[in-house]
């Protein structure tokens, strides 16, 4: 607000007539305060749906709070100390990170490859570009349920196909690594096209003459891709990594609906694919109804996301600082 440029009347005008003065005062008030009013909706909504729940969750996490109980008791950081020693919690952290890596790495590589294909001269280019986005407009729940059936042990199509080529059926839902792969497939199926379009948009911003020059110098397509396209896409890649991080660490619907039947919230009999958000839900709601403990999980999830976000920021700063001299060197080298 320090830079506010109000058109203030130069000096105080003499109170000649009351009406202009009142109007002037009103307009001054208007100019001075209405900006606050304009931005207020965001802050009010944030306070109600963002800040307040955050603070309240923290307050709850300091209590032994049975969801139905009438009088929660204050226990300080007990929930946190118990949680840090809870092997099931760390198990869910590893699951979350494992699924995150398994889904994000192939997803971004595939998206990059797809974008590169779509960037060429193709027939029905717009049609292809729209097609890759189709998985993204289907509902997550529907995707998860269908994939849950595809990856069934006995009646699933994946195991049937494996059987055709002579491979024994895999226990997709009760083998830790297999369930990670299955869930990652789901995430990838849904998000690869979306990322490909973002990459495609960035690719189209790369000047064509760079490629022409490279082609004249005798660089083939692969060489052009790795030495021109990828380095210039760095900021976009970072953006996609961050977006995937946020989504990946909060993964819930896919693993939850991948499992069906009793206690699906466990993500398999030995918690093979239980993510942090599922663990939070299991504790805060059925079957434990331990609201305090669940809130503590929520806060540690928040902390984990903050840490990963901080690492992201550090990497961006690094890359941002390193990128310019790097490209400069390349240009010099090519001359």
């Amino acid at each position, binding site marked *: 607000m320090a830079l506010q440029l109000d058109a203030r009347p130069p000096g105080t005008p003499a109170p000649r007539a009351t009406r202009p003065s009142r109007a002037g005062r009103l307009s001054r008030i208007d100019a001075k305060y209405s900006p606050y009013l304009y931005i207020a909706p965001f802050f009010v909504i944030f306070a109600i749906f963002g800040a307040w729940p955050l603070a309240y969750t923290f307050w709850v996490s300091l209590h032994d709070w049975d969801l*139905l109980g009438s009088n929660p008791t204050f226990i300080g950081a007990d929930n946190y100390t118990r949680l840090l020693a809870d092997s099931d919690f760390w198990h869910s952290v590893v699951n979350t990170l494992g699924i995150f890596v398994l889904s994000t790495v192939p997803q971004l590589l595939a998206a990059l490859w797809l974008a590169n294909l779509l960037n060429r001269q193709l027939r029905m280019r717009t049609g292809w570009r729209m097609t890759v986005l189709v998985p993204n407009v289907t509902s997550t729940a529907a995707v998860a349920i269908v994939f849950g059936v595809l990856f069934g042990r006995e009646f699933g199509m994946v195991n049937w196909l494996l059987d055709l080529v002579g491979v024994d059926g895999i226990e997709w839902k009760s083998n830790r690594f297999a369930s990670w792969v299955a869930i990652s497939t789901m995430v990838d199926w849904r998000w690869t096209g979306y990322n490909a379009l973002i990459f495609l948009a960035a690719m189209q911003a790369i000047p064509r003459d760079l490629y022409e020059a490279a082609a004249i110098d005798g660089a083939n397509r692969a060489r052009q891709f790795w030495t021109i396209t990828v380095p210039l896409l760095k900021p976009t890649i970072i953006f996609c990594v961050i977006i995937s991080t946020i989504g990946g660490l909060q993964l819930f619907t896919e693993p939850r609906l991948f499992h069906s039947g009793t206690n699906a919230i466990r993500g398999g009999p030995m918690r093979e694919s239980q993510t942090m958000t599922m663990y939070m839900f299991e504790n805060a709601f059925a079957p434990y109804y331990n*609201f305090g403990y669940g809130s503590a999980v929520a806060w540690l999830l928040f902390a984990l996301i903050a840490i990963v976000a901080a690492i992201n920021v550090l990497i961006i700063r690094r890359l941002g600082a390193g990128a310019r001299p790097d490209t400069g060197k390349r240009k010099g080298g090519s001359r």
Partner: protein
Amino acid sequence: MGTFPRHRLAAVALAATGVLLVTGGCGGGDEAAGDGTITLTVDVFGQFGYEQLYQQYMDDNPNIKIVERGTGGNLDEYSPKLTQWLAAGKGAGDVVAIEEGLMVEYKANPDNFVNLLDHGAADLKGNFLEWKWNQGLTADGQKLIGLGTDVGGMAMCYRTDLFDKAGLPTDREQVSALWPTWADYIATGEKFKAANTGASFLDAATNTFNTIVLQTAGNAQGYHYYDTSDNLVVDSNPAVKQAWDITMNIVSAGLSGKYGSWSEEWVSAFKQAKFATIACPAWMTGVIEGNAGPEAKGKWDIARVPGNGGNWGGSHLAVPQQSKHQEEAVKLVKFLTSAEGHIGAFKAKGPLPSSPQALDDPAITEATNAYFSDAPVGKIFGEGAKTLKPVYMGPKNQAVRTEVENAVRTVELGQRTPEQGWQDAVDNAKKAAAK
């Protein structure tokens, strides 16, 4: 102009936005309709079979309109919702169903519910099996939060076509004679398996384990995971270990189809006739019919359960304190849990009455089920109901049961040995009870 008006203005601005938000956000109408009609919402899970009873009640009470929610739903999804409604003080129906395994948890906070004793329910005691009545009563006997609906008398449902294929008898009397004990059941299963029908003998070890443990506990001390003073006794109660060992014998004989109960796969296995028997509390008959579909009509039949009796499941109806029409809701509960209500529900969807008068009624004793080859369901399930030995369920019953059944599942899937599984069951049950 000091800072004073600025604050005031800011406050006005905030208040204005707040008002906008509130008026924009709350479009909910009032429940009371203008013509004096009262709408009562009933929250259930699975199949309670009340549709015709509602119609009858609405005809007799023109000022009442009844809406049922959650029909056909899964208990696993229903109970967290109910708990959230109760915790939030808003959202629950005027009448809610409570399953027996969760009753103790809800009874721990009886203030969430209307005390039915304040509404003259004490006179109804004789209408219920004594233990069923007591389940709805708080430990001090001062508050009654629920009136009983059904009990889960036990049987064994089997597919006659698969039995025929395996060269086993198909007549229900002869089938019952095959397995007086669980060891005989396993022996029959081995014969069935040797015949290579392409189907498993049973659906999943978890449901069977639950059946056995409720039976062994009912026949012994009357409690399984918690003793009647609410101490966790998973590791020291011989009834639990005995049920575990029987289940492990079933698993190691390779009789289970390992279809995780209530999963999509389980439902598909019903449809494709992938298993021959399933432990069958009275309410399960409706589930089987729903899952196996009309094309399997007449292919199922019902025999006696191995071992002796047992009870699994059964519910109560309660009125949450947050209901705006408590008086009317209590009246409806009394109607639905009357002998007449129990009989109506049984006829519609098969839940077995917990009212002795209903159990003696010819409408029950002579009832047959066309889907199950005209099996005399009233006789099969009703016989044991009055002598049924209930099992006490402790405070974290549901969470502990989940852990023990999960341990069964890990052994069944070959992830753990029976010894490791038992250790998991004990350790995780302790952890769950402490949460």
